[in-house]
């Protein structure tokens, strides 16, 4: 029997992705749990694993955009022994071919539809290459009569696809090095679109404050050894800020809500996104029910996400459904910034670099480890008073951590 490998539903706002890398190729024998390919979506790249054993036949090319539910491979479980690679042709029996409309076929039809009637007609050799190599005829420039595609054009397109990276480099330097042009990754493009969308949708405003980190630093210094010994990981600042944020959100619930058309939706749970910079761009895994988690649990969550992010193994569900976000530009040295909202959330807290600065304490000049705080908020939902109150609450909790439920 042949089992179809479909693109799983990876999240509510995700309808398509890109098969970025096949880890197995057609003819390979795969076992359940084997990573088949990496699916890159606008939010994250994730590995899709085999659910049953059998011989794989891939149906989508690397770099191909695929829709949720699209069949990208077939696993033929009638072949049990992991023998030599079986040619893909022989495996596709007429029967399962009928059942499984090759995705590239539907795709090429759809692609062709956008073009003029004349251009839909491809020469037989070109048609074959387009289908086999999953090319978009519209994207190939034709050198034939009246701009028609020749087999040579199609082959050149295949070659340029295979040497994509080379080609990019070459294109990037057309004779000088004053410009370098590079296609943005789907992730980057999505980030760009999201940011612009956020700016255009919400009425974003930022309010600032600062906090003295002395108390938290002192507390950490005091409990660090015991904490590390007991839990196997260090107590960081982030868990304090998550806890402080939860306290502040409880005090000013409106910041923990979102606008949906004409309604305001109040979230009564505390799923806090923690922005993490990765090689591939900024991603925001969610610490779930932060209000119910201990410091240890929070630290474990954050550490776990950091590892996953570094290895590109974050799952879509890790990134979905946060109610509020904390962004720490301080790790890169930022002293002050105005974060952009992560829609549809109504608030984002910006943490910054801790810097020893002179401050007046009880009328006396003292040098303290200071951090500026910023809260960007959607002014449509959140009033200035609420925002300022929220930030003051965070400040108070950090400066006097005893206000937090210290449970270590």
């Amino acid at each position, binding site marked *: 029997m042949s089992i179809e490998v479909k693109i799983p539903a990876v999240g509510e706002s995700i309808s398509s992705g890109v098969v970025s890398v096949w880890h197995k190729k057609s003819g390979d024998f795969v076992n359940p749990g084997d990573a088949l390919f990496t699916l890159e979506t606008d939010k994250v790249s994730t590995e899709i694993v085999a659910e049953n054993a059998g011989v794989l036949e891939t149906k989508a090319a690397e770099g191909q955009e695929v829709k949720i539910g699209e069949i990208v491979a077939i696993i033929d479980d009638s072949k049990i022994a992991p023998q030599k690679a079986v040619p893909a042709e022989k495996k596709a029996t007429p029967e399962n071919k009928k059942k499984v409309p090759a995705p590239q076929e539907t795709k090429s039809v759809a692609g062709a539809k956008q073009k003029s009637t004349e251009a839909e007609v491809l*020469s037989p050799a070109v048609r074959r290459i387009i289908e086999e190599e999953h090319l978009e005829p519209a994207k190939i420039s034709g050198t034939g009569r009246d701009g028609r595609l*020749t087999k040579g054009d199609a082959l050149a397109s295949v070659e340029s696809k295979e040497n994509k990276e080379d080609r990019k480099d070459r294109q990037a330097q057309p004779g000088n090095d004053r410009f370098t042009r590079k296609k943005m990754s789907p992730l980057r493009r999505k980030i760009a679109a999201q940011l612009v969308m956020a700016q255009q949708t919400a009425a974003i405003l930022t309010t600032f404050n600062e906090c003295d980190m002395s108390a938290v630093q002192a507390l950490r210094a005091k409990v660090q050894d015991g904490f590390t010994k007991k839990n196997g990981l260090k107590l960081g600042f982030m868990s304090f800020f998550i806890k402080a944020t939860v306290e502040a959100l409880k005090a000013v619930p409106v910041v923990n809500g979102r606008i949906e058309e004409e309604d305001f939706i109040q979230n009564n749970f505390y799923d806090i996104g923690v922005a993490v910079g990765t090689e591939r761009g900024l991603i925001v895994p969610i610490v779930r029910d932060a209000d119910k988690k201990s410091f240890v649990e929070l630290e474990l969550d954050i550490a776990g996400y950091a590892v996953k992010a570094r290895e590109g193994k974050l799952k879509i569900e890790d990134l979905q459904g946060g109610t509020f976000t904390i962004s720490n530009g301080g790790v890169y040295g930022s002293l002050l910034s105005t974060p952009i909202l992560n829609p549809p959330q109504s608030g984002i807290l910006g943490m910054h670099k801790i810097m020893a600065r002179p401050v007046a304490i009880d009328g006396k000049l003292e040098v303290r480890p200071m951090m500026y705080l910023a809260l960007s908020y959607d002014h449509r939902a959140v009033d200035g008073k609420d925002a300022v109150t929220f930030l003051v609450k965070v400040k108070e909790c950090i400066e006097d951590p005893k206000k937090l439920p210290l449970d270590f």
Partner: protein
Amino acid sequence: MEKFDVVIIGSGPGGYIAAIRAGQLGLKTALVEKDKELGGTCLNVGCIPSKALLTSSDHFMFAKKEAVKHGIVIDGVNVDLGRMQQRKDKVVKTFTGGVRALMKTNKVTTFEGFGTITAPGKVSIKSSKGDTQEIDTKNIVIATGSAPVELPFAKFDGKTIVSSTEALTFTEAPKKFLVIGAGAIGLELGSVWNRLGSEVTMLEFLPRIAVGFDLELSNLLQRSLTAQGITFHLETKVSAVKIDNSHATATATKGGEEMKFAADKVLVSVGRRPFSEGVCAEKIGVELDEKRRIRVDKHFRTNIEGIYAIGDVIAGPMLAHKAEDEGIACIEIIAGKSGHVNYDAIAGIIYTNPELAGVGLTEDQAKEKGMDVRIGKFPFRANSRALCNEDLDGMVKFVADAKTDRILGAHILQHAASELIAEAVSVIEFGGSSEDIGRTCHSHPTLSEAVREAALNVEKRALHILNR
């Protein structure tokens, strides 16, 4: 008289087609022809009468030698050469009359007389009666064609030493027919008279026949024609032709050895030269090239504004269909449109049996250019229809770019090669690949399947032969 938009000098296939196109585009057009009949060399003393005789003599050969293979027994098959020639004349007359009618329907004014360009925009026409008139025009297209090349030691006398013109009108088959030059014209007329009873000897200076065509197929053609009774002497240089009492003796050397060839008729078919003199193009400063062809740019413009030239009188293969396409393109350019001729997609054909047809590059030409090519071949003996037809001679050969698979050349040796080549020409015109032909459904059983098979053989996947 009203000023013409365009005056075309010469009514051969280049000129008359240009006139039709000009008429279609609404240009006020004149066509000047020195001869009484329109149509030039091709219609009157070239392609058309030669094909009429080739077909007639081919039918004779069928009746005499092939019919019996089909179980058709024809006793006492004879040729009535008079009637054969009459039919040929009728074919020519029908065609030239048709051209005249086409000039009328396309509102083209025809002038009988020798056209001379006296100045840009002025053409003087001297009729056969001796009177001269001058017409004004915005544009002039020189389409004066070509004439047979004469050998200095064997000047045409119209009786014994003849050009193709006279070789089409013999009233009896010469006993011994000597042909100097084994190109298209020599091979075709040599075939005609060989079939009609002459003892034909062909002398060729080069080590091969049909120069310009694929060597492998040319050699196969030579083998077929030899089997039909024609004697070939290659690498043979003719140095003299003596006439004595209407009989000719040609002296030639072959490999340092002197040879003598006796003949009743000698056809000199060593090529054609551009007919660029007389139109006075030179007098008014139209540039010629080193071969005395009129020099034109890509848009058929001479160095003088308003004067264009097309066909045999300019560079390129001397082919009627090349002249036609240039005529169309030239007129379209004059009319302000874009005209273009793709010289890579012009087939050359020799109408022998089997016919030899070729378009684009030959295998050797491609290799000389240092191109990396792949070859696909298919013999007609493996083709179903050829077998039914009892016509197994020949093969199809493709030359395709090794990387892009684009068809660079196609060559066919077959009784119907002249028709079969058209498919390859179309595909070449569209920049197609051998795979494009290989993936196109060809009707069964047809000779055209061999074209597809040869295309498949480029990628070594022909179906009815072992692919090598």
